């Protein structure tokens, strides 16, 4: 039997591409998950190699600066794009670079991240994991020569998969990708990120077992009045978030003001400070989840938590600002757990009502600080839910999150990741700009555009058209739109001597129209097909006229937007 070679139709091509993309998403989920697991393991191996079982004071003091000299050189000479967390760089890759991440980025991030965190810097592994995962996804997309749109789409997919494995929280990872990387909770990439996240977490669990990151007892609201205490925790959390973010930005800006040539030794300067800090408070070394776990279990005294809080704030600020490779995701949780534990202890002493364990406050504090610093409140809620698998703590958590988030946002509108980028002279599209992209016909239309009745003479209609300067005239009433007459048609009929004729004779039905909820791309497409005046009609009754989109109305809206900015 002869098989004819028939070219694929666009629909078949689209279907085929979707199938390939789905398979690719799974493979990327697996690879990104593996990279995150390997990254975590490598940090453990490096830390054990650098410090041994019981580190001497000389090791505590000298390992961080010595290793940072090496990483400083690597970061300066070979991998300048992998300093810090990696999440801002991933956002830049997604929003500004079309999803293109060079292969050196995931490799460099892995190497320098392991060295920095493994040598005791007070930083987190999740941010780097996200950058590594996104980088792997992007590199594979480029290698497969996918379309630019698809390569871009793979970035949040890889990021979500890596975070899912790093934290063992697949839902929170998806939320994070949508909330932070894409910046749109309604993103069409939801399906891909979910698939990759699930594939990743399956891989992670099959290697490391289904161990939650923290072992937390079941906590719940002991007394309704405790919500007030949790609200207080939210306020304290907001203030601490603000202080931490500002301190971090200030010290980073200070380091950046130093001569460019000093960048090679800046990580080592930070390393020396960390070495001194470790001599007194070794608990702030690296990610520090052991201490967080202890606080979450109510196993820490308020005084100890206060010391660890101060040390972590100082340590992370120095490690990050001096240009080492590591994130602030884990430090945010650490700081939050300590703040929560301290507030919980105070509430326990002072409250006239029964209160929960300090571990419950540590847990809520962890979420509140995450919402305040990282500015991903939904991720925070889902993350805590996935960690505890107990929804009774969600109400206090949401109260505290909301307050911490609101306070932090009010006093520092720019999120810390975006502020880092602004220090590097990179401006990501703001939320307002993204909202502008999502404008609908309702936002763009002119609701006051006059209509003429079908019995109006051509001459009167022409006069009105001249006054408005529009390219077409709308015929009918607001409740009964009859149709549209283009300026050319009207002019031709008028020149043919029909000035006294009714315009109703010329009118053609408004087949090309938009509805108020149509997005701007649909509106523009249909405006191009129209006579220059696109009627916007109700979905419930297509004859009901709600306004019209014209080039002028779009420009007016655009001008209003730029004036507001």
């Amino acid at each position, binding site marked *: 039997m002869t098989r*004819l070679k028939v070219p*694929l139709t666009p629909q078949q091509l689209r279907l085929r591409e979707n199938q390939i993309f789905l398979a690719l998403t799974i*493979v990327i989920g697996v690879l990104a998950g593996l990279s995150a697991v390997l990254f975590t393991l490598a940090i453990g*191996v490096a830390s054990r190699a650098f410090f041994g079982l019981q580190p001497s004071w000389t090791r505590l003091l000298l390992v961080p600066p010595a290793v940072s000299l090496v990483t400083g050189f690597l970061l300066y000479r070979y991998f300048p794009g992998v300093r810090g967390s990696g999440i801002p760089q991933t956002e830049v890759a997604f929003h500004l670079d079309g999803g293109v991440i060079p292969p050196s980025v995931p490799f460099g991030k892995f190497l320098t991240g392991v060295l920095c965190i493994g040598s005791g810097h007070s930083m987190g592994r999740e941010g780097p994991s996200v950058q590594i995962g996104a980088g792997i996804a992007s590199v594979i997309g480029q290698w497969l020569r996918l379309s630019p749109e698809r390569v871009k789409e793979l970035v949040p997919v890889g990021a979500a998969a890596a975070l899912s494995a790093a934290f063992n929280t697949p839902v929170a990872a998806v939320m994070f990708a949508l909330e932070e990387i894409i910046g749109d909770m309604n993103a069409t990439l939801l399906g891909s990120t979910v698939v990759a996240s699930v594939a990743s977490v399956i891989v992670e669990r099959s290697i490391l077992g289904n161990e939650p990151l923290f072992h937390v*007892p079941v906590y719940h609201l002991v007394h309704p009045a405790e919500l007030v205490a949790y609200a207080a925790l939210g306020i304290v959390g907001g203030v601490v978030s603000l202080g931490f973010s500002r301190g971090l930005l200030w010290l980073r800006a200070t380091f950046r003001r130093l001569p460019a040539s000093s960048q090679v030794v800046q990580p080592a300067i930070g390393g020396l400070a960390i070495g001194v800090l470790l001599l007194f408070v070794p608990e702030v070394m690296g990610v520090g989840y052991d201490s967080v776990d202890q606080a979450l279990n109510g196993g820490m005294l308020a005084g100890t938590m206060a010391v660890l809080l101060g040390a972590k704030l100082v340590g992370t600020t120095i490690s990050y600002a001096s240009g080492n490779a590591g994130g602030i995701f884990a430090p945010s949780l650490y700081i939050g757990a300590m703040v929560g534990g301290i507030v919980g202890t105070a509430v326990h002493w002072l409250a006239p009502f029964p209160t929960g364990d300090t571990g419950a406050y540590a847990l809520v504090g962890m979420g509140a600080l995450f919402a305040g610093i990282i500015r991903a409140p939904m991720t925070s809620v889902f993350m805590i839910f996935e960690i505890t698998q107990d929804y009774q703590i969600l109400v206090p958590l949401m109260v505290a999150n909301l307050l911490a988030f609101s306070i932090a946002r009010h006093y520092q509108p720019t999120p810390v990741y975006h502020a880092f980028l602004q220090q590097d002279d990179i401006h990501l599209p703001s939320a307002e700009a993204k909202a502008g992209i999502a404008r609908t016909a309702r936002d763009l239309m002119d609701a006051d555009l006059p209509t003429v009745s079908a019995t109006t003479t051509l001459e009167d209609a022409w006069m009105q058209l001249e006054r408005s300067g529009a390219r077409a005239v709308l015929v009918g009433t607001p409740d009964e739109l009859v149709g549209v007459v283009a300026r050319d048609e009207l002019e031709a009929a008028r020149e043919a001597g029909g000035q006294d004729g009714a315009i109703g004779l010329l009118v053609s039905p408004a087949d090309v129209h938009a509805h108020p909820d149509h997005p701007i791309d649909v509106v523009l497409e249909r405006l191009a097909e129209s006579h220059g005046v696109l009627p916007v009609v109700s979905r419930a009754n297509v004859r009901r006229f709600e306004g019209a989109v014209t080039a002028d109305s779009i420009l007016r809206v655009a001008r209003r937007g730029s004036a507001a900015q």
Partner: protein
Amino acid sequence: MPLPDINPRLVQREVVLLVALALVASVAFVFTREVAKRQHDTNLSDAAEWFAIGERQLDEGHAAAAVASLRHASSRSRDNRHYTLTLARALAANGQVEEARTVLLALREIVPDDPDVSIALARLAAARQDVTEAQRFYQNALYGIWTPGREDERLRLRVELIRLLLQHEERGRALSEVVALSTNLADTAPAHTEAGQLFLAAGDPERALDQFSRALELSPEDDDALAGAGEAAFLRGDYAGAQRYFSRASALSGRLGELSAVARLVLTQDPLAPRLTLAARRSRLEAAVSRSTARLEQCLVTRPAAASSLEPLHAELARLTTSIDNRALRDQPELVDHGVDLVYRAQRAAADACGEPRDTEDRALLLVGERHRGPA
């Protein structure tokens, strides 16, 4: 009809690349799993090392250092129940009782039927004087899943619970536990003796006597069993039986010696004892009345405020003294009953006003009165 074909080059390239990626993923998976396994082994070995350090520090009394070391151990080997239990012990030793409790409760979430975790929690609660929680955890431990060969340990745990309950005057609950204990006893003299002692402490001399009797069947000369049986018989009001047991014991401690003396006096001072001659009965009654009069007078001196209740009894005793003679006793046998009752009331009133009698004779007279009054 020929099927529409798709571009074979495109298919080949996509499939080949995806297969290549899947292969890379598989190799990466195997590699990562191997690294994870090695890291896990290192963690376990580090944990064992930290545990050894922590245990040594705990034994040397450095509880704070032990806590830190044991935390390292249990965070590296979270599944190791023994590490966590020792950590809890170190925390408790370091005065961090609440933290120890939290650690144990978290462990109990994972292994709810593990008796060792419940035992540790019970002991923490007992140290905090929280008897209710302690009893709950002791019960959880007792009804947990015990590995074979630990039966004796389980019995000792129940004894520990009983002693705690007795210490906190929870005699009812203690008695229930002793009953449960007695059903699983080893059939040895020491085991029955201990059970008897616990029954005695819980206020059940009947069952106590059963246990002591069994112990004496197994070991007739067991001094502890003899003393216990004597006490149990005494508490049941069987003073003759008590005397028999006490007399067989080679040595009696101070309290038991007193009990023995009181039992002997009860038997030798009772005017209503059977088979007495009239003279002997009269003599005993006169001695009892005389002793009780002296007791009242002594009490009136120390507690004059009690005169209103004691003086009428004193006067009544004086009247009785004058009316006792052989003839009266022969003509009115009920006079002895009246005398014994009056003596009891006088002793009781003195005890209420001036405290329980210390003198063995007074104690014996009270018991004689109680013996013939029957249950209140």
